C-alpha cells in the first residue's frame, strides 16, 4: 500500500480541493488506510491530481515504429502525467477489424506503461469508401472510430457512419476539414502565410466541415466528437449545436490554445519556416486561440487532447511544404497549459479537469477521478517549477517540438498508472 502524504488533493470530478493523504491499494484508490503496512511518499507542497486522460494521440505502432512505439509513446505519456491514452488508428495496417484492435491491446499489455485504449477506423483503410466493422471492433475494445487526419469527404458516408455508430454507442471522431478548400495548404491562411509565401488553409476549411458534421449529427442522432478545433467560428457553431441538443463533444490541443501561426516564422525560437510548428490543422491566430480558451472555459469544448504526433527527424529537417505535420506533445502538454494558469486565464482546477475528468466524461470512461475504489491513476505535479524544453531528452521517439529552448513552468513529478509507479522525477 502506498500513501501519498500531505499534498493538495485536487479532484475535479468531485470538486475536492484540500490538503490531505491518498492511499493506493494495488490498483485501486482508497480514502483511508486498509492496513498498517504502507510506503509513504511525501508530496507536501505539491498537487495530487487524477492521472490525465488523452483522447487523441498517435502511437504509430504497428507500422511506423521508427516514429514511435507503444513502449516509447506510453513512456512519454507517463512523463507527461497521462495514465490513459486513446491511440488513433492511422497505423500500418490501419485498425479496421476486431483482430486489429486485439493486436494493439496485446502489444499494449506487453509494452505499455499506461492504459492504451485503441480507436478503430471509421472507413476501411481510411480511404473513405466503405464503413469499417464497428461492432466487431467495439466488442474487441475499440473506444471510438476515426480516420485520423483523413477527413471523410463524402457527406453521405459520414451520415451513414454516424447512423451506424448508434449500434455500438461509440463516438465518431471527425477531423473536420474540407479537403477541397485545404487544396495543398500548409499553414493558417493569414498575414504570416502571405509574407512567407506559403499556401494557406482558410478557417472556412474547418468551419464548413464542422457545419456539415453538426448537421449530420443532428440528422442521425449519432455521437460526434470533433477533434482539435482551431477556429473561433467552429467554437461558436459547437456552442449553438450543444444548446440545441446535438450530441457532440469537442477537444482542443494545448498548442492551439497557446501558440499561433507566428511560430512558423520563428516567433519563440528565431527559426524561420519552423517545420516543428507545422501542424494539421494549423496553428491559427491570437483571436482564434482566445476563442478556443473561452470555449474550453464555458464547456463548449469538452476537454484538452494532445494530438501527440511524433515524427522522424528527417521528416522535419526539410522544406516546409514537404514536412510531415504534427508535434510531439505528450511531454509538454501540462507545462504549456500551465502558461494559461500562470497568466490567470484558466484556474488550476479547471485546467486539471480539462485533462482528466472532462475527457473521461466526454467518452464515458471510468477514469480521471480520485474517488475511492476507482483505478489508482494519480499524478503529482509541481505547478511552479520552471524547466527548459529540450526535445532531445523526450522519452518519445518524436523530438519534433517548436518549444525547444523555451521555458515552461509546471512539471510532472510522479505518475502512477493502475497502482504502478511509471514515472518518477524528484519525489
Amino acid at each position, binding site marked *: 500500500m502506498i500513501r501519498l502524504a500531505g499534498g493538495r488533493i485536487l479532484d475535479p470530478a468531485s470538486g475536492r480541493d484540500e490538503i490531505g493523504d491518498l492511499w493506493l491499494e494495488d490498483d485501486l484508490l482508497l480514502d483511508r488506510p486498509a492496513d498498517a503496512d504502507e510506503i509513504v511518499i511525501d508530496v507536501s507542497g505539491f498537487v495530487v491530481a487524477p492521472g490525465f486522460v488523452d483522447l487523441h494521440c498517435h502511437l504509430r505502432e504497428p507500422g511506423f515504429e521508427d516514429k514511435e512505439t507503444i513502449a516509447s509513446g506510453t513512456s512519454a505519456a507517463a512523463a507527461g502525467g497521462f495514465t490513459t491514452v486513446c491511440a488513433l488508428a492511422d497505423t500500418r495496417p490501419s485498425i479496421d477489424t476486431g483482430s486489429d484492435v486485439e493486436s494493439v491491446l496485446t502489444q499494449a499489455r506487453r509494452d505499455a506503461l499506461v492504459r492504451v485504449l485503441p480507436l478503430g477506423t471509421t472507413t476501411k483503410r481510411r480511404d473513405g469508401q466503405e464503413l469499417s466493422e464497428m461492432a466487431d471492433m467495439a466488442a474487441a475494445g475499440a473506444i471510438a472510430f476515426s480516420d485520423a487526419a483523413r477527413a471523410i469527404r463524402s457527406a453521405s458516408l459520414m451520415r451513414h457512419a454516424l447512423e451506424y455508430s448508434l449500434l455500438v454507442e461509440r463516438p465518431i471522431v471527425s477531423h473536420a476539414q474540407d479537403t477541397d478548400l485545404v487544396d495543398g495548404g500548409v499553414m493558417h*491562411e*493569414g*498575414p*504570416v*502565410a*502571405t*509574407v*512567407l*509565401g*506559403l*499556401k494557406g488553409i482558410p478557417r472556412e476549411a474547418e468551419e464548413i466541415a464542422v457545419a456539415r458534421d453538426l448537421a449530420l449529427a443532428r440528422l442521425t442522432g449519432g455521437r460526434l466528437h470533433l477533434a482539435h478545433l482551431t477556429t473561433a467560428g467552429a467554437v461558436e457553431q459547437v456552442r449553438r449545436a450543444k444548446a440545441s441538443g446535438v450530441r457532440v463533444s469537442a477537444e482542443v490541443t494545448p498548442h492551439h490554445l497557446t501558440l*499561433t501561426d*507566428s511560430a512558423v*516564422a*520563428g*516567433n519563440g525560437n*528565431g*527559426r*524561420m*519556416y519552423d517545420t516543428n510548428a507545422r501542424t494539421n490543422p494549423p496553428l491559427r*491566430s*491570437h483571436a482564434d486561440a482566445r476563442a478556443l480558451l473561452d470555449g474550453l472555459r464555458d464547456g463548449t469544448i469538452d476537454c484538452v487532447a494532445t494530438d501527440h504526433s511524433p515524427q522522424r527527424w*528527417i521528416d522535419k*529537417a*526539410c*522544406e*516546409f*511544404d*514537404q514536412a510531415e505535420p504534427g508535434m510531439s506533445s505528450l511531454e509538454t502538454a501540462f507545462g504549456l497549459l500551465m502558461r494559461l494558469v500562470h497568466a490567470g486565464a484558466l484556474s488550476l482546477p479547471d485546467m486539471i479537469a480539462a485533462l482528466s475528468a472532462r475527457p473521461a466524461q466526454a467518452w464515458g470512461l471510468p477514469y480521471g477521478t480520485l474517488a475511492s475504489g476507482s483505478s489508482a491513476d494519480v499524478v503529482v505535479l509541481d505547478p511552479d517549477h520552471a524547466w527548459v524544453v529540450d526535445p532531445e531528452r523526450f522519452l518519445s521517439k518524436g523530438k519534433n517540438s517548436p518549444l525547444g529552448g523555451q521555458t515552461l513552468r509546471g512539471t510532472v513529478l510522479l505518475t502512477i498508472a493502475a497502482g504502478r509507479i511509471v514515472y518518477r522525477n524528484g519525489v
Partner: protein
Amino acid sequence: MTLQVINRAEPITQRQPAARTRRHVLDLDDFSVEEVETVLETATRMKDVLSRPIKKVPTLRGKTLVTLFYEASTRTRVGFEVAAKALGADTVSVAAATSSVTKGESLIDTIRTLQALGADFVVMRHHQAGAPYVVADEVGSSVINAGDGWHAHPTQALLDLFTMRERLGRIAGLRVAIIGDILHSRVARSNLWGLTLMGANVVLCGPPTMLPEPSFCAGGLPWDLERTYQIDEALHGADVVMVLRMQLERQTGGLFPSLREYVRTYALTEERLAKAKPGALVMHPGPMNEGVEIDPKVARGVQSAIEAQVTNGVAVRMALLYLLSGLPA
C-alpha cells in the same frame, strides 16, 4: 537571422545594419537602408568593372560558387555565374534534374555534400518557399536565395532598385505600380520589402484572385498598401510599371477564366502606358510572355528597362558576392 513575426500589430522583422557581418542573403526583410545603399554603391563600382575591356578582377580567386537549381532559370543562374567569374571565382552548376536529387536525395543531404566539396557560396533556387532557410541553418557556406517558391527573390529586387535609381535618379517618393499575379510572386514580395524600405510608394494591381486578402495585409506589413483591380488606376501617375509574368497554370487552377480576358484586362499596352507619367520606366523580371502581360512594342520600347535589368543583375550579384566574402573595401 532574427526574423520574427511577433504578432499582427508589431513589425515582422528586425533590421540589421551591417552588410559586412552578413553571411546569407535570404530575403530583403532583414536589410537596413544603409545596407541596401552599400549594395547599390558597390554595384555601381562593379558596373565599371564590367565596362572595362577585360571584364575580370581576381578578388574572389580560389573561392567556389555552386548554383543549385531545383527549378529552371536562365537569367538568374547565368547572371550569378557571370558575376562570379568576373570576380575570379570558380563556378559549379548543379541542376536538380541531373543530380542525385532524382534518386530521392534530401535537400539536407545534397547541401551537406556540396559543403563537403568546398562550396563557399551556394546560390539556390527552389520551388518551395523557405527551402534556403533549411540550407542556411545547416551549412557554413554563404547561402544566396535565387528564388524560393512564392516567397522571395532578393537579388531580383536589388537589381530592380538599382535599375530604378540608375534611370530615375532616386527611389524614395517614386510611385511604383506592380501589375499581375501578386499573390504567387516572389519578385513582388521581395520588391515590397525593398521598395517600402527605400521609401517608394507602391500600388498593387491584379485580378482579385491573385491579390492577397486585404485583411492579411494590415498591421504594419509591407503589404499594407494601395491596391486596385483596375490597371488604369494603378498606372495613373506611375513612375515605374513593374509587370509580372502570368503563369498559365493559374488558369487551370481556376484563378482566371482565359488568357484572352487577362490580356484585355491587364496587358500593358502603349495605350495604357500613356496613363503613367511621361517617361515612366517599364520593368519585367522575365521571362516574359510577350503578348500576354506585356505588349511586345512596350517590352522593346524606349521606356523599357528590361534588358538593363539583366545587365544590372550581374553588377548587383557581383556586389553581393564581394560584400558577403567579407573582404575589405
